[in-house]
């Protein structure tokens, strides 16, 4: 699918940049620190990050809840699966939801939302394409839904953000199209800082690179609170193009 460069050849463009800088065609004299990391360094760093997180987990979870609330999430701490399901069901009831799309993530193996919502007459369905024609159909169903549920690939205590990565089951559109988004965060999803996130993702990227398929995945998305704007008279309004209401369920595993 890659077509040819339609602008000027990159060699010509880069030569003009070099000329403006008065630089020879050579790497920086002093190698740039993060880019010199080899796989062992990245692995060690990731292990350090994971160990530190494990040691601080109750505190990180507390901070995550605090920061997320400040950033506009409705934060609920649930002691187990039952409580989580109760919360999701009560939300669906309040919204009168009949169709609830969800991403296809491992969290739903532990938290069976489909069955729980079916109990109150709402159809909870994984947003998965099952044929070439279903793309438009799924989008229409998403647009008509009043709430979407996802897990979190990571949840960052520093910023109160939930991270979603690509996978089968449209987690991106499930999180942004319906007016209400619920993110279920397990203890194991919690990390401390932006630096933690990028250390872990860099390892993953370069590990993939080893087997010849260096890949970041097509997207990495942060969600931090509801969709909002202040473009008219600096007055904050929530729910512009994304959800007006977002819920973070912190699942404290039994």
């Amino acid at each position, binding site marked *: 699918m890659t077509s040819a460069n339609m*602008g000027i050849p*990159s060699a010509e463009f880069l030569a003009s940049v070099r000329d403006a800088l008065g630089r020879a065609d050579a790497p920086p004299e002093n190698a740039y620190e993060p880019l010199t990391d080899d796989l062992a360094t990245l692995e060690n760093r990731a292990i350090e990050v994971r160990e530190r997180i494990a040691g601080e987990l109750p505190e990180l979870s507390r901070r995550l809840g605090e920061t997320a609330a400040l950033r506009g999430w409705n934060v609920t701490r649930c002691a187990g699966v039952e409580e989580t399901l109760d919360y999701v069901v009560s939300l669906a009831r309040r919204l009168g939801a009949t169709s609830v799309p969800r991403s296809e993530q491992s969290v739903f193996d532990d938290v069976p939302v489909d069955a729980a919502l079916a109990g109150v007459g709402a159809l909870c369905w994984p947003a998965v394409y099952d044929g070439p024609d279903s793309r438009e159909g799924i989008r229409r169903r998403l647009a008509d839904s009043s709430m979407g549920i996802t897990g979190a690939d990571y949840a960052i205590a520093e910023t109160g953000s939930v991270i979603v990565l690509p996978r089968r089951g449209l987690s991106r559109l499930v999180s942004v199209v319906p007016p209400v988004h619920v993110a279920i965060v397990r203890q194991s999803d919690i990390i401390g800082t932006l630096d933690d996130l990028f250390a872990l993702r860099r390892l993953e990227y370069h590990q993939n690179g080893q087997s010849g398929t260096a890949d970041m995945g*097509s997207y*990495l998305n942060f969600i931090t609170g509801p969709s909002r704007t202040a473009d*008219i008279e600096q007055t904050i309004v929530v729910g512009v193009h994304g959800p007006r209401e977002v819920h973070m369920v912190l699942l404290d595993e039994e």
Partner: protein
Amino acid sequence: MAEVVTRQFVPASQAAVKDVQLRQALRRAGSGFDGTRREAIAEVSEEVWEGWREQARKIKEHTIGHLDYYLAMLERNVAAAGGQVHFARDARQANAIVSEIARRNGVKTVTKSKSMVSEELGLNHVLEANGIDVFETDLGEYIIQLAEETPSHLVAPALHKTRGQVAQLFAEQLGVPYSEDIEEMARVARVALRQKFLEADMGVSGANFLVAETGSLVIITNEGNGRLCTSAPRIHVGLAGMEKVIPSLQDLAVFLRLLPRSATGQRISSYVSMVTGPKRAEDEDGPEEFHLIIVDNGRSRLLRDPALRESLYCIRCGACLNVCPIYQRVGGHAYGWVYPGPIGSIVTPGLVGVAEAKDLPNASTLCGACRDACPVQINIPRMLLHLRHQQAESNDENERTSSDTDKLLARGFANVMSSPLLLKLGRTVGRAVSKPLAKSGKIGETRLPLISRWTQARDLPVPAERSFRQRWRDELSKDGR
């Protein structure tokens, strides 16, 4: 390229300061943004903040200093992820590339998330001339697109509009009942654009950062429009000035801390989207094609001059606009092109040519508030002075700002100021001459030659009865200090 009316700075700013609604809008926005920015800094402590600024500046210094190297790395890694990088020398070329991508794919509808580069290129007009419907989806951009205006602020494009003006615009253009309720207006925009997001063939976005290590494009929005533009259509085209690249994913953390805090005082924006190539075979969601267009359009001119190079460190947060006493009076449109305010007064002459934008480097009090606010410590006042100096010394008639009379006056002023005797004489004569013309110690607007150019914009004070030196000798130093 977008129309350049930078030569009109003086009349445009004179009109702007008389616009009461604009003054209100600017006052509200300026104090609002700057207040929340200061709170966000206080929250992490001044010391931590300074550490971040230092770190970010070092990253930018290194990257811009080796820009060719990192652009090449970016190109390789975008290609490895299945995307395509195109390099454009100027606006015409960049527009041609986007048009060609649209033509090849039979694109009829484009949704756009906010991109200052696309404003710079004047892309919308070119696409529309090719029969393509273009929809801006950021609420502020949507408003100014309906009004057929240009952005007046880097992060709040419709800052100059009051709610009444927006209500009027929506009623006229969208046929909805007139309502000044801001929530209702946001709902109207949501409804109008929702279907467009899902129908559009092509999404166009800007880029806040490009990560060379991974070939990723990063956009930061609050509304969710950026995420929809880059995920729903079949094709995603990213537009970026060539200075947007950073080396490593690890470098992104500090910029995600600095940019939202500096722009709106938010600790982080609602949506940070990092896009790396098109959707993979196993993904169900996302564009089939990803194109990244890297634009020079005059930037290599800024790169070439070591004294102006640091203007390319700018991350377009708008903090310098919110603290600038000039921007706060005249607003963004007076500057006459896409990038207003202190940083715009450096970037604009660089991109459109010094001769086109002679007034901009002079539209500053050199108070230094912009430098203090800048999250990457760009020394804006130093560069403004550098540009003024260049203009004064230029051999090109079109670039020079100072007449021979100006030069003579400046030299005379320098002589007087460096000689105590002449200064004393000048003060005495100046006071004798000016006192009869003054009202309560100041000369206001006058037609007198020489001083009329000064007094058309500000009062000229009469020299004090007793000079500072006299007062120092007689009173202030009495206690022996």
